[in-house]
């Protein structure tokens, strides 16, 4: 493509329009978090009447934000760790072995990724309730229920992405390691995994982002004690007041870890998505 004048004009327009579309909400979020309460309760202003960091302090006491934060961290970290581990094992099997049921496994698992979440909501609620009354293991209203739900939701895509990565690593490498006395799992650990590190990172970020942002199951399967941020942030709106400045401050704080993580690992993420898609 040539850098003609019309193309340069097109580029300028696209960047300006989409830049504004992207930036305005981010600007509204950041400035609202620095406004006193009266500013967000009256007509919108582009600039705070007085800059304050009080929302970042008050947000911890208006709502038990620290508890929700801790719940989200525990749920997301556990679900991510488990999902990545399970996906690595499954992807290694699919990539390196031929066995009966291999294609049945991959198509079944992948197709579940396509199904809407609401389809699983009612049955899972029912199953978890009944497991609870039968065995005493609490899955509704506990972090464990959310962890196993989230880890499974991210499994299909993670497996798919890792199979793409593992396939791109020459088999000769793990065969050489096995000649040197490695078991297949040893070859996975010493040869395949180090070479597939960007893929593993991408999968971990994808799993963490999914768990951190999930709303549907969090709204049904949690109670006061184990509520996650996805649901907890709604509690800043009470019947008498909506603390928009604190909502925006809290949104900002809970977004920073995932946004930074995603942007840092952007390249591996894109590479991972395309490694799977190009096949």
């Amino acid at each position, binding site marked *: 493509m040539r850098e003609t004048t019309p193309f340069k004009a097109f*580029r300028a327009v696209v960047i300006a329009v989409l830049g504004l579309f992207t930036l305005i909400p981010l600007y509204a979020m950041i400035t609202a978090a620095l406004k006193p309460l009266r500013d967000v309760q009256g007509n919108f202003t582009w600039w705070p009447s007085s800059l304050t960091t009080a929302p970042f302090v008050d947000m911890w006491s208006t709502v038990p934000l620290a508890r929700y934060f801790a719940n989200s961290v525990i749920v997301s970290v556990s679900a991510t760790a488990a999902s990545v581990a399970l996906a690595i094992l499954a992807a290694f*099997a699919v990539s390196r*072995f031929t066995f009966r049921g291999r294609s049945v496994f991959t198509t079944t698992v992948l197709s579940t990724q396509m199904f809407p979440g609401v389809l699983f909501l009612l049955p899972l609620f029912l199953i978890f309730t009944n497991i609870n009354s039968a065995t005493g293991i609490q899955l509704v209203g506990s972090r464990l229920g959310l962890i*196993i739900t989230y880890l499974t*939701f991210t499994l*299909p895509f993670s497996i798919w992405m890792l199979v793409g990565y593992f396939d791109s690593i020459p088999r000769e490498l793990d065969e050489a390691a096995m000649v040197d006395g490695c078991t297949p799992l040893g070859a996975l650990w010493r040869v395949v995994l180090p070479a597939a590190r960007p893929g593993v990172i991408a999968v971990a970020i994808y799993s963490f982002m999914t768990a951190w942002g999930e709303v*549907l199951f969090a709204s049904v399967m949690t109670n006061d004690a184990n509520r996650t941020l*996805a649901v907890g942030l709604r509690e800043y709106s009470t019947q008498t007041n909506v603390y928009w400045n604190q909502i925006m401050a809290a*949104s900002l704080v809970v977004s920073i870890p995932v946004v930074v993580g995603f942007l840092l690992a952007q390249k591996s993420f*894109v590479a991972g998505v395309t490694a799977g898609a190009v096949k």
Partner: protein
Amino acid sequence: MLPYVLLAPAVVMELLIHIIPMFVGIWMSFVRLTKFFLANWSEAPWAGLGNYRLAVDVNSSIGRGLLMSFGVTLAFSICALALSWGLGMAAAIALQQPFRGRGVVRTLFLVPYALPAYAGILTWNFMLQRDTGLVNHVLADNLHLITDRPFWLLGGNAFASIVTVAVWRLWPFAFLTIMAGLQSIPTELYEAASVDGANNWRQWRSITLPSLRPVNLVLVLVLFLWTFSDFNTPYVLFGTAQPPAGDLISFHIYNASFLTWNFGSGAAMSVLLLLFLLVVTAAYLLITNRRSRRA
């Protein structure tokens, strides 16, 4: 033996959370599963096709509600898909050639996608408030386009709002995917076309679009499935208000199930949703496959 051992944990979780619940869901749609039977489901009375009859009976309020929600969801899905794809494509083309600041622009464009869904949607909720929101402030006070401030989260405007919010969050994904697809197009193709005198528009139509076909096929399907079953956007944007113009089907089923605790009819609606998505996906794959074979 080893591959099965490696697969076992993933298979167990898939069975427990995906496969078994799917069959349980289908079973649920055939029984009268109200609040009283949730803890002892084996005693729930058989309903046959009763739940389905209720869900598709357009003369009853339940059936009419579901049909309306289906229509709204279809319109939403098509608008959000078209806009996300268009914006993603425009941005990917604009950023195809290196220029100063390209990395910064690309990173900025990806931020809405990286934000947790609820954080982005809550921000839009804040901006769309009638009396205190940014959108009405810009329209009424900055641009003087309107004098009466409209409600954006109630009534008919809810549709435009939910499409905008969904596109804001989703178009970066289209951008990311198309950008990755563009990287695999050899630059020699463009050079050869330039020598032959093809202008940029011609090059986009004759080189870029055909080369992106496999990427686009997957992207369009994924965007459709995502938008059609979108729950986060209406749930966080509208909360308990549920305006009919923003009553997307996942949100509708959720509310129908947990307001009445009638899980049987909720399950029937979910199964209908699944059947619809399966039929659309199958038809889509069939048509696109046939076309590529002919080409």
